[in-house]
């Protein structure tokens, strides 16, 4: 079995409305040294086995499903998982 760990983050130029609100919350909780919070998504995808076009497949899943290419970018790691 294979495990893909996918990280989807907003592009830097896109306003992160959730991150900003969370940052404000950390300040009101007293953590004044928080400078910035960015919030993204994290996926763990288990695959049965490596296919011929494996990385290509993951790219398509990310492009078409997990990330919104208009505003997000993604990266991933693949680990063996047995």
């Amino acid at each position, binding site marked *: 079995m294979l495990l893909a760990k996918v990280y989807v983050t907003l592009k830097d130029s896109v306003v992160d409305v959730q991150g900003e609100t969370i940052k404000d919350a950390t300040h009101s909780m007293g953590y004044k040294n928080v400078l910035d919070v960015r919030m993204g998504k994290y996926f763990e995808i288990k695959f049965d086995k490596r296919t011929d076009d494996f990385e290509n497949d993951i790219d398509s899943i990310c*492009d078409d499903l997990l990330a*919104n290419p*208009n505003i997000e*970018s993604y990266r991933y790691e693949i680990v063996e998982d047995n």
Partner: protein
Amino acid sequence: MIEPTPKQVQEEKIYRSWGLSDSEYELISEKILGRLPNYTETGLFSVMWSEHCSYKNSKKVLRKLPNDSSRVLAGPGEDAGIIDIGDNQAVVFKAESHNHPSAVEPYQGAATGVGGIIRDIFSMGATPIALLNSLKFGPIDNDQTKHLVKEVVAGIGGYGNCIGIPTIGGEIAFEKCYEKNPLVNAMCIGLLDNTQFKHGQASGNDNLIVYVGAKTGRDGIHGATFASDEFSNKKKKQRSAVQVGNPFMEKLLMDACVEIIHEHSEWILGVQDMGAAGLVSSTAEMASKADSGLMLNLDNVPQRETNMSAYEMMLSESQERMVLCIKPEFKKQVLGFFESYNLDAVVIGKVTSDKQYRIYHNDELVVDIPVDSLVEDVPEYDHQGIMPERIIESKEQYIPEMESFRDTWLSVLSSPTIASKAYLYQTYDAQVKSNTVVKPGSDAGVVRIRGTRKAITSTNDSNSRYVYVDPYIGGQITVLEAARNIVSSGGIPVGITDCLNYGNPEDPEIFWELERSVQGIADVCRKFDVPVISGNVSLYNEFNKEAIYPSPMIGMVGLIENIDHITTSCFKNSGDLIYVLGSTSSDFNGSEIQNLQLGKVEGALNDIDLDIEKKNQNLILSAIKQGLLKSCHDLSEGGLAVALSESAFENKLGFNIQTNISTVEMFSETQSRYLITVDSKNKNQIESLFGNNFECLGFVTNDSIFTVKARDGELDLELNEALNSWKEAIPCLMK
């Protein structure tokens, strides 16, 4: 990046890629400024002179629309129009299109469309009380369209639900021509509790310009600055100019603006939202309206990104931002007020008396032009229309083929245009604020006005098929259909906002469609004394030179004088008599059944007798006021067959009718008709009121069966089977 010099802007014709023509550029440099505009100035002209901000291609056509009535307190020109509803109360409403942003990024495009139209309403000091929307997509037969539908609907709900304004109505249609160019029109209605409203004006020397709300980023700037890398590698690009909505911040902004206008009106002179073309459009318009000048210092503008140029800051379309013009002596109070809402508020400039628009950035004067040159000096274009070849002027009607009455009935019900949209609109909060009396699903949404007996009813309507086959009559029908929906729910039409969605106006055939359909709209508005008090034009809706159907959308608002008059379309009790008011003839051109059978619509439409239309509207309203109607539903797409079915579904009641109408005519879309039910004890009363222009069809039953005896055929249909066809069609396609 080093900015091109004015000379370079001229020589390399940089202005062209921003949409300015050579002659417009010459007008600016030679006649208006007497010098070459610099890069930033050229950018300001290019957005302010765009169709979106200036209406340079449509102004002449828009003048056809009447914008006055005894109820109008403010017409086009403000952020939104205002209609007096008595008792020192008024409603403010406007619709806005967000077609292109939604095509590029459906969720955020739709969400920010809703956010933008809400700002237009509360910037007038009105409390938003309802939202509506009109959506058009391609047929749901591919993943891309499914994705578009899902994301647009989610974006609309995501914004409206979060900010807490009920979505009370709308429409959704599917047509091939919208496949690559979906239409997303959103409308907001607000209530002004005191007819004293705030103009979007910046007047009085030395008064201060205050910026409130979200920080400015490079959102929505589609200029030449990074256009090249934008379209090179679409998926992998690291920059994005997509605007992202923040309904949470807008809620704070809304509450704060409404409160400051109401409670501290003496502090402020004007309020304006930053919409398209952000800072430049809002401030230039405020100054121009007040015949003032303006000085802005961009170094004070709250910025989200580093190293932004003046051009970028002025044109940014970052969301959730407002501009106020305030009296200097209240500066501390105003800034403190917004701080208590956790909103950024800073002074970014002041009003001057010399009618110049001056912008400083990094201590340099980067813009110095007459305010009016941006707003008033835009050339107006007069296009000549040519009737498109496809328009067949023959009024000969298409006659549907019908093998099985029953199968036709079911397939019309499951056609996406007709089928229930509940699966989609159920994701909108229709009830928040606890004033919604009629939710989506009837003819028009209704919200009551708490503390009074009054209610407001509203609908969004457009039938672009009719406009496509016959722009003039199609335009008329769009208004009439909206009016029938309002009347059916118990309201008197009091005003209209519109979104005029068309293709490229420089194409003479498209211009003809625009001109003729607006003429049709205007003629009906005059006849019925319903003013168009606000609206929006969206042109260039094309993909690969294929234009959309001409798609004027009418957002109509009606006043219900007494909540007892509120009427819905569903049958109420078995035994009630069913009538159709208005006579039925063969009207199949542009109809649902023509489209279903031919895969296209064609042929001219029959003329509409506006006197009969008016008379029938009055009859319905008078019957409602006398308490005679148990239900009322206007007849539109799919004709009597569809209206009967829809009225039966909600309470799962059947009907048993016998009629002189033929089986095909059950699907005819003759105008000016209503389906009503009446308690049998009121038979004589309703018939004497209606005179001779009605047919008593039969009665409502509780046996869940549709029984129809038409002139040339019969039908016995289980309600549940019909209901399934109608209700499951859209969810099934979306799977």
